[in-house]
């Protein structure tokens, strides 16, 4: 097998929390050597000159929706994989909220087969927590884990019956399975399209207080204390939920939390005149919330950032705001969009990749997310400064529902390697 040497790189190392010049040698799908000199002499290696640009561990994106099975017209494994590669995402961790949902080992095997055929990046599936995602009966965790499920979640269908969730978490604990919750008090947030406050009232839209998120998180954390299950909160967006999270971590519970690229970079006012491409779940929050969430990522209280890539076709979005579907695509845009936080001085690059690559890999027990010798050669090379205007029709996703259409962004992916294979070249 050939050797590839990426020279002249600015190495973004989230593990060492450092940015330094260096080179990476790829061989047999792994990082064979890491050099602290920009141009080491390696015999017989193909040279890729990074030209001083950033090289970081590839992104591990937890919570990606692919339209298979059921909605392949919105996104297939092929298009999702291309979008991921173009966005520097080397592992996509898929959501089970498909039609039908992924709640049996047979369904899981189907998507693993499809993913292997079609996607140029790693695909790891999550499975539903309850059958049919209807919150009544737990799925076959054991069989599903044998088939490759890396976590269990009902996505935005919150399990309302606490007894059901308690049992599922108890059972998950016995298998050491990871449960991913969507912290939300479902009766309070039912029907809501935006966060409560002045904007919601001005637009006359049904609203939910961000407090519903804290209530959901508090319940889930109490269940972690009760059952000992491993728990990950998918999206934390409200400042008021952070003290609960902080307390849970301080008490040593096995709790981690994520947030989304949209809640880190947009606020409720971006919805403006009912722009449905900005409708996400949970709804965009106030600027105070956004800043608190950015700070929580910086401090490490929030562990993981995801795109929560949710492809929707035009028909699902071109409706009155209340009726329009939620979600936005993000695989391809996540890195350039999040680089806004780097350019504004809110997050350093190693911090960003700690949340994008290192922490999600760790949480799922993967060896990826690092720039160390022996780690998988899942890498992203990007120019952090290159400016461009996003044209949604040029996205590789089948669905073009991004809130960043026509946005001025700075930072472009130049190349992506998955297990040492180059899967994207700008």
């Amino acid at each position, binding site marked *: 097998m050939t050797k590839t040497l990426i020279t002249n790189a600015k190495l973004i190392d989230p593990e060492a929390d450092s940015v330094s010049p260096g080179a990476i040698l790829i061989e047999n799908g792994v990082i064979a050597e890491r050099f602290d000199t920009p141009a080491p002499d390696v015999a017989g290696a193909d040279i890729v000159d990074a030209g001083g640009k950033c090289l970081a561990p590839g992104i591990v994106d937890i919570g990606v929706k692919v339209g298979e099975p059921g909605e392949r017209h919105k996104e297939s494994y092929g298009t999702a994989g291309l979008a991921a590669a173009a966005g520097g995402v080397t592992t996509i961790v898929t959501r089970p909220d498909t039609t039908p949902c992924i709640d049996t080992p047979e369904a899981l095997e189907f998507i693993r087969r499809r993913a292997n055929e079609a996607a140029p990046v790693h695909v790891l599936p999550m499975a539903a927590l309850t059958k049919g995602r209807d919150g009544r009966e737990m799925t076959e965790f054991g069989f599903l884990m044998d088939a490759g499920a890396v976590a269990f979640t009902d996505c935005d269908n919150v399990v309302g019956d606490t007894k059901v969730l308690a049992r599922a978490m108890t059972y998950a604990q016995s298998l050491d399975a990871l449960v991913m919750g969507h912290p939300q008090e479902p009766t309070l947030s039912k029907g809501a399209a935006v966060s*409560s406050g*002045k904007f919601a009232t001005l637009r006359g*839209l049904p609203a939910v207080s961000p407090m519903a998120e804290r209530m959901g998180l508090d319940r889930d954390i109490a269940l972690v204390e009760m059952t000992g299950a491993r728990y990950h909160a998918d999206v934390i967006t409200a400042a008021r939920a952070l003290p609960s999270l902080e307390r849970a971590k301080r008490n040593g519970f096995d709790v981690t939390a994520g947030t989304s690229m949209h809640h880190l970079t947009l606020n409720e006012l971006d919805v403006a005149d009912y722009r449905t491409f900005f409708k996400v779940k949970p709804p965009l929050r106030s600027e105070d919330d956004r800043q608190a969430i950015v700070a929580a990522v910086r401090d490490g209280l929030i562990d993981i950032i995801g795109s929560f890539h949710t492809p929707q076709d035009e028909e699902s979005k*071109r409706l*009155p705001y209340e009726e329009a579907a939620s979600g936005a695509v993000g695989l391809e845009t996540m890195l350039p969009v999040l680089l806004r936080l780097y350019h504004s001085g809110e997050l350093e690059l190693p911090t960003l990749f700690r949340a994008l690559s290192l922490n999600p890999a760790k949480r799922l027990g993967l060896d990826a997310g690092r720039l160390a010798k022996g780690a998988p050669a899942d890498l992203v090379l990007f120019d952090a400064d290159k400016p461009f205007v996003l044209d949604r029709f040029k996205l590789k996703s089948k669905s073009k529902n991004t809130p960043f259409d026509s946005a001025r962004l700075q930072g472009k992916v130049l190349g992506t390697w998955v297990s040492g294979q180059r899967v994207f070249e700008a």
Partner: protein
Amino acid sequence: MRFDQRHLLGIEPLRPDEITTILDLADQYVTFNRSRDKHANALAGLTQINMFFENSTRTQASFEIAGKRLGADVMNMAMQASSIKKGETLIDTAMTLNAMHPDLLVVRHPHSGAVDLLSQKVNCAVLNAGDGKHEHPTQALLDALTIRRAKGRLHRLNIAICGDIAHSRVARSNILLLHKMENRIRLVGPSTLMPSGIEHFGVEVYDDMRKGLEDVDVVMMLRLQRERMDGGFIPSEREYYHRYGLDAAKLSVAKDDAIVMHPGPMNRGVEIDGTLADDINRSVIQDQVEMGVAVRMAAMDLLARNLRANPKEVMA
């Protein structure tokens, strides 16, 4: 006199001088409407379609009469019975209608923002006749005209808006308009019927009606929107009437010449005492209906002038 709007989607985009322009013209139409021969040609040759996705008798009739008196060809479409039931989307309906070249589209829709969405897809002038809990601009304008004629001015008045603020598009439009015209606005109602973030709207909020009505010039009552509630906002109608229903005793703390308004239809004995509603010395509820026709004539007249002045300005 300036009016630079292409549509009338809400009070929010209007400047104070544009509001005055509408009201001044509406004043002329009040006189006109009281004459025996009430037929004008301001909208002659134009087609007006009233598209109501939500039941309405009063507003639809008001728009219809307004259009007809100005010479428009008026057509009513009851959308609940139509293709929307067959699964056609709002956009498709809009495009279909647009192909028939209407000039004025009057739209009421149960979802906030739906009229805005529709206006982006058609070439004609769109008037919002109420969208969800968002805005109902012609109601706020007719209320403003009623107040201005009764009080002689539309600024520096103490105005109380009472009742179900949370579910009311009338309240939102009125708050925006009265605020733009520099009045003091009080909102009176139980806290369960106050929308979130209301403290940022430049209003004073009261949950005690006797305090809220003290020395006010205008009392605007709102209908309890029972059909928009999913339960549990108030303990019972009788307790609501006791605490927030307008009667002579509660009104006695307002100024002696305070007027009483209601956008209709009224729930007598729920939010307002029947006798008080009929008291011609206090209640201007019938005037509001009259002003409604005049204001709608003025709004459509002004939009039609802009339409005729900029015929090329159309959506792709």
